[in-house]
């Protein structure tokens, strides 16, 4: 199995390394440039840890103007740039390369304004996702998209990947909750897109930037929507004898027009891993578990739950367990949200992220099991079932190169299966380097050419995060 490639470092840039570092030191305040090789190590990868590259330097600007100055410089001298938030990308989106300057937003982590009358928060890009909800929680609001990594990941990274989370079934993903952004283009131009209004004039450039994987510009500020917290919320556990039954139940609940806030799926291996870690009270004698969260008034939750229980009954549900207290509810979510971390404690894993039409869930779950068995590996499934966004975690041993290669190959087969079932390669983690070379399985050449032309409208020299998203061969000459 071939390793995923990066672009060859530009010799002209490597040769000028010392000068570039000296110039950047001049452009930035003291303490805002990392360039000693030893200190660069923390930036060599993200959460897609199988790949590592040391960057040329890491700029940690404190203002939009400094971001603009660094970009302008890099654009002038043809130096690649890799934007970085918290580095929790699961697809290698934030992994640097030898000739690249990383621009990290970690020092821009202030909440600039909370405006309850308009229900917006304006924040710097380095603010963590959870910080926003925490800042407004006491006043009865929250920021809806909730990636499991929300304690660490930044709003800039969320915009980069158009991240989702468990509660996005009802509230939508990042793009549906983003009203405005301050974007610095590669030539240092600062543009304001959108604002506090619910829609903006002109072309929806913000819609392109969200999910642009750091290839269109660097976001330094964002205005996001706040939502009033529901009166109450109740996660309920539904245990089934087979994954197929659970998958079919999900399709029927949605098909019946019931849209809970969240429907999360775990299979037996995932249940065992999460229960051992979080002691969430998950039933252990089932093969598959759904966490369904309903919210609203007591009356509303009761009515919705009754309908869901009825549907689950038709699919042979074995256990229905309602959380009896806020503590129990929190534990249920703690178990789910620590699934990746808990898995990481028992084995190395790679996490797939394909989305499939709901009706295809049982088929794709079966296919996934077959593929993984064929490669002699193990898999744990834990994912956002309500919108068909699957996360098979393929377990392997990273110290064994052959095992790692098998895991990668199995992952690729699973993603092809998702696309062939009418779905897509990635629902929320992004293409990064991980799925880059599979893009042609989902898109025809002409489709990719159109995307690359749009990308070039923002960055004609392909300096921004250049090794990502688009297959390396077949790119237009910069």
């Amino acid at each position: 199995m071939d390793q995923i490639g990066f672009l060859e470092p530009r010799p002209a840039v490597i040769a000028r390394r010392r000068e570039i570092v000296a110039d950047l030191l001049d452009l930035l305040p003291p303490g805002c440039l990392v360039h000693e090789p030893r200190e660069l190590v923390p930036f060599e990868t993200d959460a897609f840890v199988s790949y590592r590259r040391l960057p040329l330097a890491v700029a940690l600007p404190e203002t939009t103007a400094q971001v603009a100055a660094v970009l302008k410089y890099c654009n002038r001298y043809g130096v690649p740039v890799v934007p970085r938030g918290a580095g929790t990308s699961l697809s290698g989106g934030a992994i640097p390369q030898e000739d690249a300057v990383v621009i990290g937003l970690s020092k821009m982590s202030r909440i600039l304004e909370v405006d309850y009358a308009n229900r917006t928060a304006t924040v710097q890009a380095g603010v963590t996702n959870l910080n926003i909800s925490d800042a407004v929680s006491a006043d009865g609001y929250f920021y809806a998209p909730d990636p499991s990594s929300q304690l660490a990941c930044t709003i800039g990274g969320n915009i980069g990947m158009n991240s989702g989370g468990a509660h996005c079934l009802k509230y939508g993903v990042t793009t549906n909750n983003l009203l405005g952004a301050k974007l610095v283009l590669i030539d240092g131009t600062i543009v304001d897109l959108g604002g506090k209004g619910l829609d903006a004039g002109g072309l929806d450039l913000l819609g392109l930037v969200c999910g642009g994987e750091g290839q269109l510009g660097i976001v330094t500020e964002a205005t996001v929507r706040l939502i009033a917290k529901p009166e109450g919320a109740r996660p309920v556990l539904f245990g089934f004898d087979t994954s197929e039954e659970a998958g079919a139940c999900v399709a029927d609940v949605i098909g019946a027009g019931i849209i809970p806030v969240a429907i999360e799926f775990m299979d037996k291996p995932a249940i065992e891993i999460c229960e051992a870690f979080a002691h969430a009270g998950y039933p252990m004698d089932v093969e598959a578990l759904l966490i369904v969260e309903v919210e609203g008034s007591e009356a509303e939750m009761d009515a919705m739950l009754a309908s869901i229980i009825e549907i689950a009954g038709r699919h042979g549900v074995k256990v229905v367990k309602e959380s009896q207290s806020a503590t129990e509810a929190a534990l249920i979510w703690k178990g789910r949200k620590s699934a990746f971390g808990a898995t990481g404690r028992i084995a190395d894993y790679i996490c797939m992220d394909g989305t499939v039409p709901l009706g295809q869930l049982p088929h794709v779950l079966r296919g996934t099991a077959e593929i993984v068995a064929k490669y002699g590996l193990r898999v744990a499934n834990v994912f956002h079932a309500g919108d068909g966004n699957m996360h098979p975690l393929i377990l392997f041993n990273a110290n064994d190169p052959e095992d790692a290669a098998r895991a990668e190959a199995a992952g690729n087969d699973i993603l092809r299966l998702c696309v062939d079932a009418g779905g897509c390669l990635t629902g929320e983690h992004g293409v990064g380097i991980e799925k880059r070379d599979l893009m042609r399985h989902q898109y025809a050449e002409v489709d990719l050419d159109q995307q690359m032309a749009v990308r070039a409208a923002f960055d004609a020299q392909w300096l921004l995060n250049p090794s990502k998203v688009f297959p390396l061969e077949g790119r237009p000459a910069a």
Partner: protein
Amino acid sequence: MTPIHEPLSEEAAARLVQVAALSRSSLAIRGGGTRGLNAAPDGADILSTRGLTGIVAYNPAEMTMTARAGTPLEVVEAALTENRQMLAFEPCDLRGALGSSGIPTIGGVFATNASGPRRFVAGAARDSLLGVRFVNGKGEVVKAGGRVMKNVTGLDLAKVLAGSHGSLALMTEVTFRVLPVPETAVTIVVSNLNDAEAVAAMATAMSMSVEVSGAAHLPESVRGRFAGGVLPDGAATVLRLEGLAASVAVRAEKLAATMASFGPVARLDADLTARLWREVRDAAPYADGTPRPLWRVSVAPTAGHQLVAALRLETGVDAYYDWQGGLVWLRMEADPEAALLRRYVKAIGGGHATLLRARPEVMAATETFEPQADAVAALSARVKASFDPAGLYVSPLIDRKQGA
């Protein structure tokens, strides 16, 4: 007479565009022609989607539909209604206000990003658009997105095509998300509030855990033109709740109790609610058969009434508010006052104003869309060129005057 092309297939459309590209002619894309906006500028042929019709796939259980761009909206909605589903973003029908005829098409709905009162909870048209097939300015057939809700595979071209007003490409097929029709709906009416009080009341309502799915303020000047005149005397601030009957009842109690501290409270049943919000959506009070200039202005919710108050001091205007005050339907008495309006939009924190109606010579002399900041206009022009390098597709969104 402007030549009108009506290809009957995506292939034929692509060939036509290729030929137009060779002969360097211009094309103005037209859906149902209900907007009156896209009267083709000089020298452009009209490229109509009317021959591209039909629902290609509809899977109620997966809540997605795929339809060709020229499919009449009513055909789409009839199929959805049969399954108790709907387009959650409530596309408006402006034929009454614009005094236009024609049949709205599903492609036109997405090309204009038409979105109604449910914007807060259901997003805009662009949020429902999952995938698109389109013919770019080179005559290539391209697909973007797909048919699943969550998809971050590559650039989200569907987003930029939504609301592009025919400036980038000819959309030939759209795949979109649909939602179940709520079991019931009720409207809480708070009477006699002035604009500023109404904005405060609506902000309070939206801060409660009752999931308001529509918040509009209908000043006294227009109140009588809604819901057959049954709204109580004085201005009406209207708040919609939707969902399961049991839950709506509980939420309505809670909301009414809180709103009582702002003014007298009344309720509208499900039928009147449906009628009222259709009228709010469609700018019904301005379906007045006149060519008096009509604007659709989007600003921050708390800024809408400030904008109108400022304008009132200088010119004759009438207005009502949707989106908690952030969407202003504005009718000028005489002149469109574009410069004045746009100056105030900037002054109250920014937003955008679109001129929907005026006498033809006034329309021709006025920027339809909000001019963009130079850097954004330049970037938009580059994005346009990436879809349409020769500038084949003409559209008032980015072709006229600005961006050049």
